[in-house]
């Protein structure tokens, strides 16, 4: 900035010459200079004010925005143990009517912190008195170890134990809240529920992780915080499950069977209403998986899902259904049943000799291996394989259990004529009782495929059509005749028109071939057959019926009475009314006259 001098010489000289007071010039210049300085100061002050105003505006805007955000954000739910990074919540599991199958309970865990510990040795002694399985000396060594700062003592305490520990009066013993999974029904539905254990542990919470069954398979869904408030509804009916378990348990112990399974399934929707496998376990105290021996002996083994067996004559239904569906035969077509049937060095025999020929109806009702093998010959191996595949026998069942993935059906890679003939009467193809139930549901429900599920379904659209309505009606009539005139006469349940097919399969011997005296007896059926609502599949592993003095192992003597008792007890609870047996049977059997 160029400064104008206060007393510019030319103007002073000029003023002097004119006789004016030169001091005026100086004052005038001084005034101008002051004005300049004032303007500058004002501009600066204005900037400063603007800057401050902007600052304040931004500050207030920030606070206002934050307040708006706070006002708009939803109030958050009260949750236990806020601030813990381990998710402790897990959705409840209920049966189809809302009865609790699995819930959570808050208990306490016990730990010790050394910096508060007064007398570690005494604490260890007192704790050993409360918990008899604690080794007092080892615990005392850990509690008095100067290098340790923290010791876990127990993961779960009962309220009485909490009080007892509290009474020790040791400030170093501390409790941490623990959410615990509780199965109030004990062993009931143990294989479906599976079980849980603690995953990551912190002082104030521990993660619960599913270790089997539906708890493992749907672990992520159960732990999803968004749906933690909504219980998971299963398709199981607790009452039906309890009755099936009670009756099956009676059957297993009376017949001296190694194991047994019972599955009750809705024939239209595929919902599993009851699924029992014996022996079972308590999911509150899930045993460790076996490390040696036969895994199928373990109580953890789910015989209804993991048990992949050659199920024997129950499979005959599919050969007969296919032959009827393809119009190769009618129920009255006569089939050559001369024994033995020799093919490629094998001989196929019947349980007893049924004579030279019998009708397709009798082949099914009286269960002739030779007859079904002949039907399989007529159908051909490729068509049979395709048919069984569509019924879901060649892939693991798709139910929501952790164990299904490992239960692969077993069948020959090369589906030769001889294997197709043995498969037609249930040898050579191993499948689980659950798959059999789903397939039988499709046979009787009018011929549409069902997907088995353990989750409750409101509605289910009919699946892919597998056989015609007419064939399905014929199969229902044949199944009814198995009870009225055939191998399952003990399955008559007054009022509920029960029917199905028996199967007695020799068990494969570990040393090769088939065992002589060990069988798997199966009954697969549906009720009421005039309008099939439920499918029942019962298996017994190595049953022996000895009431008459000699051992009888066929399904008709062993598993059929168990199945009938389950139907007798559960049908009224499933909302079915008894009906007039004779009239219903006549209506069902009319299907056999269809052409």
């Amino acid at each position, binding site marked *: 900035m160029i400064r104008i001098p206060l007393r510019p010489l030319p103007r002073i000289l000029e003023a002097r010459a004119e006789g004016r007071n030169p001091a005026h010039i100086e004052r005038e210049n001084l005034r101008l200079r002051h004005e300049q300085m004032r303007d500058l100061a004002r501009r600066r002050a204005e900037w400063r004010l603007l800057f401050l105003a902007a600052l304040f505006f931004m500050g207030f805007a920030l606070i206002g925005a934050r307040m708006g955000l706070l006002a708009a954000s939803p109030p958050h739910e*009260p949750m236990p143990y806020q601030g813990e990074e381990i998710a402790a919540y897990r959705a409840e599991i209920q049966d189809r009517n809302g009865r609790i199958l699995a*819930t*959570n*309970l*808050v208990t306490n865990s016990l730990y010790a912190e050394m910096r508060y510990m007064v007398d570690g040795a005494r604490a260890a002694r007192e704790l050993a008195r409360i918990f008899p399985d604690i080794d007092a000396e080892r615990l005392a060594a850990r509690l008095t170890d100067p290098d340790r700062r923290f010791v876990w003592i127990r993961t779960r305490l009962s309220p009485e134990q909490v009080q007892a520990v509290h009474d020790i009066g040791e400030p170093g013993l501390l409790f941490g809240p623990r959410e615990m999974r509780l199965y109030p029904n004990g062993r009931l539905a143990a294989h479906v529920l599976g079980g849980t254990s603690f995953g990551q542990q912190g002082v104030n919470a521990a993660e619960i992780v599913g270790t089997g069954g539906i708890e493992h398979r749907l672990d992520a869904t159960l732990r999803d915080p968004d749906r933690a408030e909504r219980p998971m509804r299963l398709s199981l009916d607790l009452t039906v499950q*309890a009755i099936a378990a009670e009756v099956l348990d009676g059957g297993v112990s009376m017949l001296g069977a190694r194991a047994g399974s019972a599955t009750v399934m809705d024939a239209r929707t595929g919902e599993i209403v009851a699924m029992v496998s014996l022996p079972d376990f308590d999911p509150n105290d899930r045993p460790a998986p076996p490390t040696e021996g036969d895994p199928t002996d373990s109580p953890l083994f789910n015989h209804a899902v993991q048990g992949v067996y050659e199920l024997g004559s129950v499979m005959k239904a599919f050969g007969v259904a296919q032959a009827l569906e393809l119009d190769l035969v009618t129920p009255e077509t006569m089939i050559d049943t001369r024994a033995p049937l020799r093919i490629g060095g094998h001989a196929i025999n019947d349980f007893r000799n049924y004579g030279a020929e019998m009708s397709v109806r009798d082949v099914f009702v009286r269960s002739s291996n030779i007859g079904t093998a002949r039907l399989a010959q007529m159908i051909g191996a490729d068509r049979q394989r395709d048919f069984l595949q569509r019924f879901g026998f060649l892939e693991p069942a798709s139910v929501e259990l952790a164990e299904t993935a490992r239960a692969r059906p077993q069948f020959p890679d090369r589906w030769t004529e001889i294997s197709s003939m043995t498969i037609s009467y249930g040898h050579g193809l191993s499948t689980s009782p659950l798959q059999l139930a789903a397939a039988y549901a499709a046979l009787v429900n009018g011929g549409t495929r069902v997907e088995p599920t353990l989750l409750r379904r409101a509605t289910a659209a009919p699946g892919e059509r597998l056989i015609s309505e007419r064939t399905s009606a014929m199969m229902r009539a044949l199944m009814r005749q198995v009870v009225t005139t055939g191998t399952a006469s003990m399955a008559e349940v007054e*009022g509920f028109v029960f029917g199905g097919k028996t199967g007695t399969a020799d068990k494969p011997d570990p040393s090769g071939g088939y065992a002589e005296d060990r069988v798997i007896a199966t009954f697969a059926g549906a009720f009421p057959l005039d309008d099939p609502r439920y499918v029942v599949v019962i298996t017994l592993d190595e049953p022996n019926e000895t009431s008459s003095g000699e051992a009888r192992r066929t399904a008709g003597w062993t598993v059929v009475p168990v199945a009938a008792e389950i139907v007798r*007890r559960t049908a009224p*609870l499933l909302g079915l009314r008894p009906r007039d047996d004779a009239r219903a049977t006549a209506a069902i059997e009319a299907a056999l006259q269809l052409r």
Partner: protein
Amino acid sequence: MRSLFYAASLLAVMALAVWAYNENHKTQQSQARVAELRREIVSLREAIGVQRAEWAYLNRPDRLRDLVDMNFSRLALLPMTGAQFGRIDEIAYPPRAATPADGPALSGVIEVLGDARHAIGPSAATSGGQP
């Protein structure tokens, strides 16, 4: 005039300060109350959970079955079967609807009820104190 304005704004600032302080205090109070209520809700939920679990445990089918067996002499409960169903036409009509006018019919009903209670079992008769 000007000094009055200054005095008024000073008073206003003081009043606002008092108000802000009060609001702040109230907010803190309600926050504390909310936290307390939350804790209460959590503990009540836990208690409800325990009650529900206990209810489910007491109603487990095993226990109910045992209770039915233990009390068979008094309750005579049997498993439900198809034979227990009836049709509506199998039920006899009641003799005649009792009207307030006819007293004797009413006492007749009570007698029948009393007899039925007798018929249940010897325990009912002894506890009833009947000769």
